[in-house]
Every structure is written in structure tokens, then in C-alpha cells.
């Protein structure tokens, strides 16, 4: 894809515009969560169920997946196919670990009597973190396709922008979680 009149590639400019719109999507979900916080009339309540140490570990895993992602970009830029495959695989793998942690947490909540429709916390919590989880799942699939392309030898240094754009998406998912981790868990 050629550059636009701004000198920035079409796809990269498009991804940043998408990220800007995603800020607004998560902004509305976060606002809804914060408005209804503390208005539950039936339990279980957040303090009874939120497992801060466990979520800190999954947060750490997602942060480290961002490191894997930039290392994948650095590898593809210098034409290191083996490194590109390794770091892309680890990015997706760390994303899967994060999703596993989220699945475990959701399952735990439901078994403790807090399904989606139980109270205001569960409704806003599941929608907010579920939307984020869906973004992570999309990112994992994206990493998978890039890994396959790299394994087929179709992802060399001339495709660095393709990896960079996937990286922008992945890092955005990471920064959203940085905000959610503080607002949902640490300020619970």
C-alpha cells in the first residue's frame, strides 16, 4: 500500500484511526462500569470474588506479550525469519494464557453465583472484560495467521509494516487492559 498525502501508509493510518475509535468504544463501556459500581442490590459482591494476585499475574503475562510483539517486529525488520516466527508464536501463546486466565475467572464467578445477569457489577464487568477478551482473541488469531505466513516464508522484511500494524492492535489491547486492571481490580 502506498503512502497517503500525509506520508503515512494507508494501512497504518487506517489502524490508528481504528484505534482512536476503539478508545471511544472502551470509554463508553468503562463509563457504564464506573457509573453502576457500588449499586448492587444483591450479591455476590466484587470484593468477595476478585482475585487480585491472580489477575496481576495474567496482567504481567499480557504486558510481556507486548514485549514479544515488538521483538517480532524488530526481527522481521532485520529479516530474521526464525526470530520472527519465535516471537510471533510467543505473542500469541501469551495471549492464549491471558485468555485462559480470563476463562478461569469467568467460570469461577459463574460457579460462585455471579452470572452475567445477577447484578449491576456482573453485567458491566462481563461486558467490559468480555469485550476486551474478544479483542485479545482476535489478536491471537491475527498472530496465528502471521506465524503461518512466516512459517511459509511469506513474511520477510518487505512485510514489516504488516507486522507493525498487527503490533499496534496488540499493544492497544494491552494499554486497554492496563486501564481496566487499575479501574476494575485495584480500585475495586
Amino acid at each position: 500500500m502506498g503512502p497517503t498525502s500525509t506520508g503515512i501508509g494507508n494501512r497504518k493510518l487506517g489502524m490508528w484511526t481504528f484505534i482512536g475509535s476503539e478508545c471511544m468504544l472502551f470509554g463508553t463501556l468503562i463509563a457504564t462500569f464506573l457509573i453502576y459500581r457500588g449499586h448492587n442490590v444483591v450479591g455476590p459482591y466484587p470484593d468477595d470474588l476478585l482475585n487480585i494476585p491472580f489477575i496481576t499475574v495474567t496482567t504481567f503475562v499480557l504486558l510481556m506479550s507486548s514485549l514479544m510483539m515488538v521483538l517480532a517486529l524488530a526481527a522481521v525488520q532485520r529479516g530474521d525469519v526464525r526470530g520472527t516466527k519465535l516471537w510471533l508464536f510467543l505473542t500469541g501463546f501469551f495471549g492464549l494464557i491471558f485468555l485462559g486466565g480470563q476463562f478461569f475467572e469467568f467460570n469461577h464467578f459463574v460457579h460462585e453465583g455471579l452470572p452475567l445477569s445477577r447484578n449491576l457489577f456482573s453485567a458491566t464487568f462481563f461486558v467490559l472484560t468480555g469485550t476486551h477478551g474478544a479483542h485479545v482473541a482476535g489478536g491471537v488469531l491475527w498472530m496465528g495467521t502471521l506465524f503461518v505466513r512466516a512459517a511459509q516464508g511469506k513474511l520477510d522484511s518487505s512485510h514489516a509494516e504488516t507486522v507493525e500494524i498487527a503490533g499496534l492492535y496488540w499493544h492497544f489491547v494491552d494499554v486497554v487492559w492496563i486501564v481496566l486492571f487499575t479501574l476494575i481490580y485495584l480500585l475495586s
Partner: protein
Amino acid sequence: MSEDGHAYPSSRFYVVIALILAVLTAMELMVFYVDALASVLVPVLMVMMSAKFALVAMFFMHLKFDSKLLTGIFLWGLFIATAVILMLLAMFGKFAG
């Protein structure tokens, strides 16, 4: 390489940023469990959250090295999102004494 020809940082630099992010996350957890900091918990956690957010956006997303237009697009989205959050919280009386 950014649009204006600036080279992106080395892998070692990215590892250092990741270490800072890990330390900040550990500090967030520590602050959460220290009773003496309960009165300043919100501002302290917000500062650390903002620092982590900025580190990822500036260095991992390369906003520090890329065109300022991209920073503007991102900040505009963030501004709208923050404004929506603050206005809705105000409308629902979350800032009332």
C-alpha cells in the same frame, strides 16, 4: 523505521521498557496492599497506570518516533473517551460530595 526516517529502538531498549512495566505492575500490587497508603490509593494508582499507558504508547507503539499526526489521532480518541467518562460520571452524581 518511522515515516520520517527515524530508526526504531533496539531490542535491548524494549526489554528495559518491559522491565519498567513489570516493576510498575508489582508496585501497583504493593500499593494496593499497604494500608498506610489507603488515603492516597486512587491518585497513586492513577499515576502508575498513566505511566504504564504512556510507556507502551510511546515506545511499543512507536508514537515517540512516528508522525505527530498519529499521536494526534490517538489523543483525540482518548480525549473524547475521557470526556465521555467524566461527563457521564458527573451526570450520575459521582462527583457530588
